[in-house]
C-alpha cells in the first residue's frame, strides 16, 4: 500500500489541463478537462444560472467485470458503498471494526458449513448464527445509520442515487453551488476508505431487489433470452446477478473487487452547473489528488463467439406476449455501427417502418420496435413485436412479417426521406439531451470512460455520412439466420 503511494506522490506535479470544444453544425458541447497525477479525470461543464451543481462520479466497472460465482457483486458493492468508511457511518471505528471482524469470521464458518458441505451441521450453524445476532446487536451502538446519505440530504443534496450497469457504476448527487467540496470529501473518502459494515443485511436487501424483478412480468424469460444470446461473454448475466451467487458472495470477494476497481485511474468525476472550473480543479487536486493510483485494469477478454446456429426459445408467463429477434452486431466504434443505428431509427418510432406496416397497414401488431445496442464490447440488434391477440395473432406468426421487412431493406435499402428523418432525429435529440444537466453529466461521464467524451460528437458526425447502400450492406451482413435468436413469449400460467 505504502509503495503505491510513493509512486503517486512522485508524479505529483504532472498536470494536464485541456479545453475540448467541438462544434458540429449547430451543436456545441464544451467540456473542460483536467487529469490528476493519479490518472483520475475531472470533467466540467459550466452552466451559469440556478446555483446548483450536478456532481457525478463514474467508475469503469460493472457486471461485465464479474465472473461466475460473484455475479451481482458490482451492484452489491454499489449498495455497500453507502455503508460508511473509517470516518463516516461509525462513532468508534476501532470498537466497531473489532466486532465486525468477529462477525465476518463466524459468517465465514457458517458459509462453509452451509455452502461447501452437502450435509452441513445445522446445529453448529444455528449456534454461530446466534452469536452473530448478538454481535450485530452490539455493533449497532457504533453505527451511524446511513450517515453519508443523511449528510448529503441535510446539505440540500437531491438526485441522490447510484446505479450499476453492465459497464459502469455511477454515484450521483446535485448540491447547492457552494457545497461541491462536500461531494469531493465524501467521494474521495469512500474511494479510499470504504468499510463494509452491515454487509449481511444488505445482501438480503439486494436479494429482495432481485425478487422484485422476478415478480415483474416477463423478467424471468428475458433473463434467459439474454443468457442464451450472450454465450461466453460476461454480458450473459444481468446486473442483478444470479440468486445462488448473491447468497454465497463473501465479504472477502467484495473487498477484493472494491480494491481492484475503485481506484482513481478507473474513475471520472463530472460537474455540470453553476461553478468556476478553477475552483473545482483546486478542490479536486486537494481531495481526489491524494488518492494513490491503482494497478492498470485489463479490458474484459471474452467476446461472443460466432453463433453458427439458429437459436429459438419459447416461454410462457404473465405479462405482454411478444416476439423478440436478436442479432449479434459489433460494438461501439466499429465502422458498421452508424448504419445500424440509422437503420434502427428508420424501423422504430411511431412513424417508423415497423409501426407503419405491422401496426397500421397489416393491423397484426400492437407495438413494433427495433433497437441497435452496440455496447462497449459486444452488440445486439433487437426486434420486439407485440401481437394483436384480439385478431387471433400469435407472437410466432409475426416472425415472417419481420423477415419480410428485413428482406426489403436488404434488397431496396431505404428512401432518402427516411435517411434524412433518422439523421434529423438523431441530431435534434442530441441537442435536446444537452438541456438537462443531469442527463448531460450521465452521457458525457459514461462516454469518457470508454472512447472519450468526444466520441459523442464524432458518432453523430458518422451518422450523418450513412447512405442507403451502407444500410443495405449492414442488413445483409448481420440479419442472417445463423446470427439470430428468436424468442417467443406467450401468456401462460400466471406465476
Amino acid at each position, binding site marked *: 500500500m505504502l509503495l503505491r503511494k510513493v509512486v503517486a506522490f512522485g508524479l505529483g506535479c504532472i498536470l494536464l489541463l485541456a479545453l475540448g470544444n467541438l462544434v458540429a453544425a449547430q451543436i456545441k458541447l464544451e467540456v473542460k478537462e483536467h487529469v490528476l497525477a493519479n490518472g483520475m479525470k475531472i470533467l466540467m461543464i459550466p452552466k451559469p444560472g440556478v446555483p*446548483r451543481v450536478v456532481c457525478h462520479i463514474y467508475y469503469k466497472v460493472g457486471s461485465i467485470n464479474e465472473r461466475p460465482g460473484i455475479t451481482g457483486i458490482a451492484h452489491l458493492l454499489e449498495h455497500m458503498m453507502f455503508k460508511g468508511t473509517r470516518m463516516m457511518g461509525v462513532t468508534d471505528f476501532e470498537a466497531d471494526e473489532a466486532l465486525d471482524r468477529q462477525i465476518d469470521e463466524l459468517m465465514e464458518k457458517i458459509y462453509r458449513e452451509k455452502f461447501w458441505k452437502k450435509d452441513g451441521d445445522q446445529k453448529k450453524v444455528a449456534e454461530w448464527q446466534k452469536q452473530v445476532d448478538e454481535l450485530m446487536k452490539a455493533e449497532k451502538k457504533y453505527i451511524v445509520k446511513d450517515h453519508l446519505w*443523511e449528510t448529503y440530504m441535510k446539505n440540500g443534496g437531491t438526485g441522490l442515487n447510484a446505479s450499476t450497469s453492465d459497464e459502469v457504476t455511477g454515484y450521483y448527487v446535485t448540491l447547492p453551488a457552494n457545497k461541491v467540496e462536500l461531494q469531493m470529501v465524501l467521494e*474521495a473518502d469512500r474511494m479510499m476508505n470504504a468499510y463494509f459494515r452491515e454487509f449481511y443485511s444488505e445482501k438480503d436487501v439486494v436479494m429482495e431487489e432481485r425478487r422484485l424483478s422476478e*415478480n415483474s412480468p416477463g423478467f424471468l424469460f428475458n433473463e434467459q433470452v439474454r443468457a442464451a444470446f450472450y454465450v461466453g461473454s460476461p454480458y450473459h448475466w444481468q446486473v442483478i446477478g444470479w440468486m445462488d451467487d448473491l447468497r454465497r458472495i463473501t465479504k472477502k470477494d467484495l473487498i477484493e473487487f472494491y480494491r481492484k476497481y475503485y481506484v482513481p485511474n478507473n474513475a471520472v468525476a463530472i460537474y455540470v452547473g453553476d461553478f468556476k472550473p478553477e475552483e473545482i480543479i483546486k478542490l479536486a487536486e486537494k481531495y481526489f489528488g491524494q488518492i494513490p493510483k491503482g494497478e492498470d485494469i485489463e479490458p474484459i477478454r471474452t467476446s461472443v463467439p460466432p453463433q453458427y446456429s439458429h437459436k429459438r426459445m419459447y416461454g410462457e408467463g404473465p405479462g405482454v406476449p411478444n416476439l423478440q429477434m436478436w442479432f449479434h452486431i459489433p460494438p461501439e466504434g466499429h465502422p458498421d455501427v452508424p448504419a445500424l443505428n440509422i437503420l434502427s431509427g428508420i424501423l422504430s418510432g*411511431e412513424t417508423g417502418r415497423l409501426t407503419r406496416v405491422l401496426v397500421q397497414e397489416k393491423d397484426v401488431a400492437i407495438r413494433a420496435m427495433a433497437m441497435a445496442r452496440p455496447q462497449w464490447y459486444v452488440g445486439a440488434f433487437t426486434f420486439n413485436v407485440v401481437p394483436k391477440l384480439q385478431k387471433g395473432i400469435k407472437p410466432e406468426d409475426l416472425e415472417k412479417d419481420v423477415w419480410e421487412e428485413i428482406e426489403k431493406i436488404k434488397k431496396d435499402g431505404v428512401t432518402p426521406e427516411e435517411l434524412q428523418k433518422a439523421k434529423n432525429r438523431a441530431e435534434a435529440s442530441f441537442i435536446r439531451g444537452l438541456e438537462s444537466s443531469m442527463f448531460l453529466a450521465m452521457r458525457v461521464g459514461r462516454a469518457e470512460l470508454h472512447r472519450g467524451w468526444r466520441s459523442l460528437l464524432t458518432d453523430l458526425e458518422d451518422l450523418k455520412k450513412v447512405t442507403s447502400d451502407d444500410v443495405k450492406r449492414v442488413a445483409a451482413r448481420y440479419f442472417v439466420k445463423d446470427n439470430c435468436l428468436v424468442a417467443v413469449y406467450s401468456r401462460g400460467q400466471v406465476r
Partner: protein
Amino acid sequence: MRRTDTVILALMLLLLVCNLSFAQLPRPEELKFPPLKFEPPNPANFRVVLANGLRAYLREERALPIVNITAIIHTGGLYVPKEKAGLDLLLSDCLIKGGTKTRTGQVIEERIDFLGGTLNFSVGERTATLSMSVLSKDLDEGLELFFDVLMNPEFREDSLKLAKGRLIEQMRTANDNPSQVLAREFQKVIYGEHPLTFQATKATVENLTQADLKAFHSRYFFPKNIILAAAGDFSRSQLQNKINKYASKWANKSLSFPNISRDFPQPEPGVYFIQKKINQGYVSVGHIGIEDTNPDYFAVQVMNFILGGGSFTSRITSKVRSDEGLAYNTGSRFTYRWGFPGTFAGYVQTKSETVGYAISLILKEFERIRQEPVSDAEMETAINYYLESFADFFQSPIGTMVNFASLELQGKPMNYYATYRDKIKAVTKEKVMEVAKKYIQPDKMVIMIVGDFEPCNKGSDKFPGPLDRLGKIHRWKVMDPLTGQMVE
C-alpha cells in the same frame, strides 16, 4: 549503493506518512461553505394574457436552439362518466394520431419526426397536457401543428380503432403486475365507487365513438380553460404574436364543471388480501390523506420526511430496509390530488414470510411518531433538506414555467414558492407531533397485501402468523377489465 537506496526509501516513506496525516480528509461538519443567496423567480415576470384570454408563462432561454411549449388544459378522467370510462385514455391516444380537419395523424407525426421534434399528449385526473419540443428554426411549423391538434382534432375512425385495440390488449395484462394491482385497488378501497376510481372495461371502451371524443374536446378545449408554458430560444414578443394568430381565431365557451362528490366511504379497517402466486407480498398500509392546500401541509411534509419520505434518512427505511434487510423499497408517502384529499400510506415489498413482520414494524413507526417527539437532529436534517434543495425547483426553465401555470390553473397562491422557505422554517417539533396525531390514524388502517396467502399468513419467527393478528381479513377481488367480472 543498495543501503543508501534503502535509507532514502525509508526517509521517503517517513516523509510520506507525515504528509498523509496532513492530507487526511476533513469531517463533513468541519467544512465551511461560502454563503449562497437565491431568490426564486417571480411568476408575474413571465405571465402574459394573449388573445381571447389565453394565459401564458413565457421565458426566453437562448443557450440552445430549442423551443419547448406546453398547453395545460383543465380537463381529465375525473370528468368522464362511468359508462364512458376509458374516454380519457382514448383521448390521450387519439388527439394527435386521430388527425385534424386538414391533416391526418400520420402526416402530423411524420412531419414532427422529420423535424426531429417531439409532440406528446396525455390526459391526467384533472389536467391534460400537450407538449412540444422543436428546434427553434422550425418554431413556426411546429406551432402550426401544435395549435391545429389542440383546436381542430378530428379523431378519425381508423385511429380510433387502432387505439381501442391497444387499450384492450393492455387490459389483458391489467392484473399481472403486482404493484399496478396494489396501486389501483388501494385507491378503490379508500375512495370507494367514485369518479376517481372508475375503471375502463372492454365494453365501455368498445362503445366509445368519434362523437363522444369530439363532444368532450369541444366542451373543455378553449382559450380560457388553458394555460400555456413555454421556454427556449425565442423572442417573447414575437412568440406572443405568433400564438395570437391562433388564439384570436379560437372562440371561448361557457363551461360549468360537473359537481363531484367529496364524500368517501369509511372503509372497514383490517387486512385486504389479493391473492397472487408470487414470492413477495406487495403492501400498502394507510388511509385517506389531506389536500396540499391544507395549512398543515408543510408540517405534514416535514413529519413524513422523518417517518418514511426522506429515503434513507427516514425511520421506516432505516428500520425495515437498512436494519432488517427486509425490503428494497419501503417508506411512507402522502399523495396529493387537486381538489380532493390524497392518500397516506406506508409501503413495502418483502418476501412472503416476512410480510407480517415488515407491516408490524411500519405500524410501530406510525405509533412512535404520534407518541414521541422527533429528535432535534431529525428536525435539522428535514428542514435543511427542504431549505437547501429549494433552488432545485427551478433547474429546468420549461419545468418552472409549467409549475407556475399549474399553480394558476389550480387556483393556488402564486406566492407558493416565494413563501415556501418561511413556511418550512416555521415547522416545529411540537407541530410535527400534532400533525402526526391528526393525520395518521391507527384505528383506520387499511392494510392491503398482494401476494401468496399461505406463506404470507404463516409468517416467520419474528412475526408468526396468522395475518388476522393485524386485523380482520378481507379476501379482496379484482376486476378483469376484459369481462367486467370480479376475479380472485
